[in-house]
């Protein structure tokens, strides 16, 4: 018979039947079911195997606290492991499979672990599998690792899309149960910009699980009515299927909205949206989670939380058993008995640990007050329970009511500690809450309905007032205040068998006892040693019971024992949701140079320089190795002319009557002699005297400068300049703005560079060597009046210029240059050729300016001004940075010209061992010079300038290569600089 456990009523849509598969067996359910409720309806009790011992497990709860019923959903690339069946909405065609078994769910070969349980108790990996030592790495650890973990991944990219968003509100209400609805209602009616978020797909919280009435109406109906009113208010936003998983700084909350998880397919819509919610006030009305009582074999399928049994009965119209026993230490367990009896379900017994008269008298239910359950019978499902004095009762379901734990998780996310409330024998939110947060309802320890509604209304009123709104009058909400007396009873002391506390990580009372015996006292240590509460359920049903057991062992009270606190996320958040759109090509933004389109047409090979894509080299069809292309570019540039897009370098417009003064503070050079129309190489030091960056300073007019930086440091340099201006010298009349993007900039290098430029600059511009010498700069026009800036500077060592043009003309300019340069056999060159040429010329770059070097190390001490103060001045004079035997940048060539040099190799004298004490420096940059025909390098070596001609060894310890090298001048090409000044 299908759905044999289905009863009447419920909040499901019986006119919408659904078909799903669990472990390849076909089942039926209804719209509104979860996978768990549908499995219970079909009497599927066994749903999982436990993590360590592979014990048979059934559905334990009805919500996100579920520790057992973790299933694998969907197939192929959409496969998702470790999904809680209790919160997974059923849809037509759903495919679910059980996890963590070798063989079938019914016959799991790894259940042998249960027999080996004495060897596998908490912390076993510290105590067992120790001998022989060699077995650990090769046998024990691989086996343990292979059997650890839950579920498996598809190993395919997630085909769904995910998104992120930002929401703002005056009041965020977290939890749409009675307190939350009451709070949102009054806030919404008062005109407050309100967001109400609930993790469930049906708003109402426990109103949907109980038989409460509010104002004479069914609780679930009141929830529907209230939600409808809220949805119609323009200032209220309802987010269902949305879990607020974390409370972050400054009133920011993280939430995941599951948009299409309840559908067979996302159909191109984002599957989940990760929201950052910015709220001025927050009301946490997240309810409470029931906890069990630990007794022997209390993990068998069919043993569930009593409140969850009610939820299945009232909301989903299913009964987990036909002969149900209740085991309780409080009044709430009796409510389950009443609700079951109300649906004609046989409540075979109520076992209440309290020694007092029973709150209800039943004629056909055995009642045992002051008693407890000793053990259960049944392997893949409970069949009977054992009481003291040899009594045994047949039952196929045991509903356990151990009390309710307020869901304090979000209140702990700023390290607030919950406090113990004796009245309800549970932890409630502590004094220190995240700023702007209040707690209402069961989450605050107010378990009774009427009181929870009132507290929610009060919280909503206060939040409305705090955010500057006139608060409407509170509506009176008449509801019962159900009895909730509890007498703490955590575990049955006569346990002869293992009694479970943390179902998901297989942690028992005995594990806690053993940890205590082994000397662990602190709850933090016990947690980590036993792995209690460290599974994906964060110990929602286990934590408090464990603390109580530890307290008994140590002889302390529960408050004295303390409790571990919770961290985000409240429930698991998929990595895909966190990644959002940042996947594949959208992982990070891309910056394109003005010549990118043209370069792509030339089949350029690109390299990433930060976010920029720069042309690395331009291969021709006949070339089949990159070095052929690069060598060609280098040789042709040095022979005739080459062009390279250098837009990416940082460019900053500095203007003002105090611009010179400012620049003199931040650069080491003396810039007072920099005339209008001249450009100078500049060094920027850090406060500690080491080089931060290098670049150029061009003076376009009396109070107008353009400074440049390296590509990599552009943002850092601008930040530094802004800091200096805003914080160090705020009174200087200087204005800085980035123009990196404003100007497309091209380096034109080679003996024919002037001839090429003369074809594009407007006729009236004189760029002869006499009128425009080396290190000149000017604002010019090109191509009939297009404004441009020309700088005669060279990184390549050849006669060279850099021309800057508004970026909109960048594409047109590169095409014009290539066309005009045809008569000179112009060649475009990329970053590889650029790098080789600058190494040949001995110009330092990033590898030499790595934050460890000084001007003196790089042979630039003459650039550093002696007659002014500037950032880095004082500390650059430290004796250790000015040692006579300090590092110096020099060149290196292999003694055997066939040898290749390695960047990063360290230098040692020939007669010294290769050990740290003998380390004399390192190779910073290397290249194979097409001009010289062999490998060359730049590097820093002690007393380098005094050792020209000496042979040392360069040791590449990673590849174990040792090359003899000669120390030479770093200027491999044109050491006198004649080409530059041609």
């Amino acid at each position, binding site marked *: 018979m299908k759905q044999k456990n289905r009863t009447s009523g419920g909040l499901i849509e019986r006119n919408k039947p659904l078909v799903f598969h669990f472990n390849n067996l076909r089942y039926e359910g209804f719209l509104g079911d979860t996978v768990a409720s549908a499995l219970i309806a079909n009497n599927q009790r066994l749903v999982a195997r436990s993590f360590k011992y592979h014990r048979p497990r059934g559905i334990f709860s009805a919500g996100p606290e579920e520790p057992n019923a973790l299933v694998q959903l969907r197939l192929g690339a959409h496969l998702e492991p470790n999904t809680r069946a209790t919160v997974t909405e059923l849809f037509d065609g759903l495919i679910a499979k059980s996890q963590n078994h070798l063989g079938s769910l019914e016959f799991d070969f790894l259940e042998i672990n249960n027999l080996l349980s004495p060897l596998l108790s908490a912390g076993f990996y510290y105590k067992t599998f120790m001998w022989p030592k060699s077995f650990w790495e090769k046998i024990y650890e691989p086996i343990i690792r292979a059997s650890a973990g839950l579920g498996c991944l598809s190993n395919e990219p997630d085909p769904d*899309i995910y*998104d*992120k*968003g*930002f*929401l*703002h509100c005056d009041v965020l209400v977290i939890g749409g149960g009675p307190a939350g609805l009451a709070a949102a209602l009054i806030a919404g009616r008062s005109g407050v910009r309100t967001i109400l978020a609930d993790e469930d797909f049906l708003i109402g919280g426990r109103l949907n699980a109980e038989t409460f009435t509010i104002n004479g109406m069914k609780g679930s109906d009141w929830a529907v009515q209230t939600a409808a009113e809220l949805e119609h208010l323009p200032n209220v936003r309802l987010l269902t299927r949305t879990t607020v998983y974390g409370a972050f700084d400054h009133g920011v909350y993280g939430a995941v909205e599951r948009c299409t998880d309840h559908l067979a397919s996302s159909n191109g*819509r*984002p599957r989940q949206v990760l929201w*950052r919610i*910015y709220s001025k006030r927050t009301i946490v009305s997240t309810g409470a989670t029931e906890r069990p009582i630990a007794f022997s074999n209390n993990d068998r399928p069919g043993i569930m939380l009593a409140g969850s049994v009610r939820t299945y009965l009232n909301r989903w119209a299913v009964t987990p058993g036909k002969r149900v026993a209740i085991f309780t230490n409080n009044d709430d367990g009796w409510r389950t008995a009443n609700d079951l009896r109300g649906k004609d379900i046989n409540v075979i017994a109520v076992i209440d640990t309290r020694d007092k008269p029973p709150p209800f008298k039943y004629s056909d239910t055995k009642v045992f007050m002051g008693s407890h359950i000793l053990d259960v019978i049944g392997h893949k499902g409970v069949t009977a329970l054992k009481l003291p004095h040899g009594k045994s009762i047949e039952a196929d379901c045991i509903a356990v009511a151990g009390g309710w734990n307020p869901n304090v998780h979000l209140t702990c996310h700023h390290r607030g500690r919950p406090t113990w409330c004796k009245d309800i024998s549970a932890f409630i939110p502590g004094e220190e809450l995240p700023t702007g947060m209040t707690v209402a309802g069961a989450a605050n320890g107010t378990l009774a309905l009427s009181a929870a509604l009132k507290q929610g209304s009060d919280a909503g009123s206060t939040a409305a007032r705090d955010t500057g709104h006139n608060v409407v009058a509170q509506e009176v909400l008449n509801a019962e205040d159900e009895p909730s007396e509890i007498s703490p009873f955590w575990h049955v002391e006569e346990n002869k068998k293992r009694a479970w506390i943390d179902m998901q990580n297989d942690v028992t009372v005995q594990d806690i006892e053993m940890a205590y015996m082994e000397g662990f006292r602190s709850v933090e240590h016990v947690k980590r040693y036993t792995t209690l509460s460290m599974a994906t359920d964060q110990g929602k049903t286990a934590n408090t019971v464990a603390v109580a057991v530890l307290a008994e062992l140590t002889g302390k009270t529960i408050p004295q024992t303390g409790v571990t606190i919770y961290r985000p996320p409240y429930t698991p958040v998929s990595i895909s949701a966190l990644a959002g*759109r*940042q996947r594949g090509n*959208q992982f*990070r*933004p*891309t*910056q*394109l*140079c003005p010549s990118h389109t043209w370069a792509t047409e030339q089949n350029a090979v690109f390299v990433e320089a930060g*976010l*920029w894509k720069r042309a690395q080299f331009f291969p021709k069809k006949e070339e089949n190795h990159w070095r052929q292309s690069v060598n060609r570019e280098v040789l042709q540039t040095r022979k005739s002319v080459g062009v390279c897009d250098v*837009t990416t370098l940082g460019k900053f*417009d500095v*203007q*003002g*009557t105090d611009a010179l003064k400012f620049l003199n503070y931040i650069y080491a050079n003396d810039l007072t002699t920099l005339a209008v129309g001249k450009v100078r190489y500049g060094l920027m030091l850090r406060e500690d005297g080491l080089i931060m960056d290098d670049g150029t300073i061009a003076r376009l007019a009396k*109070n*107008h400068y353009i400074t440049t930086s390296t590509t990599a440091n552009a943002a850092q340099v601008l930040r530094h300049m802004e800091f200096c201006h805003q914080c160090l010298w705020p*009174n200087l*009349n200087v*204005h800085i*703005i*980035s*123009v*990196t*993007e*404003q*100007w*497309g900039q091209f380096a034109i290098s080679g003996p024919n560079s002037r001839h090429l430029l003369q074809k594009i600059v407007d006729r009236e511009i004189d760029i002869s060597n006499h009128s425009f010498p080396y290190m000149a700069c000017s604002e010019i026009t*090109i*191509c*009939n*009046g*297009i*404004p441009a800036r020309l700088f005669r500077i060279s990184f390549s060592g050849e006669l060279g210029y850099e021309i800057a*043009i*508004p*970026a*909109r*003309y*960048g*594409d*047109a*300019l590169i095409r*014009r240059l290539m066309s005009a340069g045809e008569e000179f056999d112009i060649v475009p060159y990329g970053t590889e050729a650029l790098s080789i040429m600058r190494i040949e010329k001995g110009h330092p770059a990033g590898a030499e300016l790595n934050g460890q070097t000084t001007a003196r190390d790089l042979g630039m001490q003459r650039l550093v001004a002696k007659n002014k103060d500037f950032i880095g001045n004082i500390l650059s004079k430290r004796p250790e940075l000015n040692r006579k035997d300090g590092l110096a940048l020099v060149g290196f060539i292999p003694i055997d010209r066939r040898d290749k040099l390695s960047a990063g190799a360290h230098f040692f004298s020939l007669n010294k061992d290769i050990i740290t004490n003998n380390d004399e420096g390192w190779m910073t940059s290397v290249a194979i010079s097409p001009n010289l025909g062999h490998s060359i390098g730049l590097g820093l070596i002690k007393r380098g300038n005094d050792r020209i001609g000496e042979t040392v060894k360069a040791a590449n310890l990673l590849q174990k290569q040792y090359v003899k090298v000669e120390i030479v001048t770093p200027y491999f090409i044109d050491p006198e600089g004649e080409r530059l000044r041609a």
Partner: protein
Amino acid sequence: MLKPSLNAVSPLNGYSKTFASIKLSEVTELAIVSITFSLNETSSFKEAFSKYYGNSLPEYGSSTLSKDSTFRFMSMQPGMIFAIYEYVGLEPISVLTSQLGATAFFSDQSDSSFILRLSGKNLHKILERVCAPDLSNKPFPPNSVARTTVDHLNAIILHEKNNNFLFISPRSSARSFLNALETSIENTL
């Protein structure tokens, strides 16, 4: 005078697309010029500003239009405003220097950025996928301006008028930015 012999190319080649009732299009004929003035010498600048544009300087986080609506001035930070205006030519700064003269310093930013206009109804659902600031009407009424980031890209957002927003972002990452906005629209349709 001869016509310039290089053709200008906009970062998104004049992109324009309609998604249901939403339109996203590149704006190409606007100049952007940064105007900075010394905090110690604002009075002469304010005087010139008021004289030529018939309005006072915008407050931080907002923009103002000149009396003839030709210029919009956005307040970016203390001592700096951005001027946006229709301009086709080679010297956008010259328009402002002729009016404000030596009271300020100017830097052409027309090519630093590209501009996208988002227009249509119910834009808030798209905007909440775009960036962190609250861009709804109450905290961000028309003429408001904010500097923020969109998918890690710098952006200036201007609430131009009801149901119209301008996004101004660095030119080099235009394609990535466009992708971010398109994705926001497509994900909310």
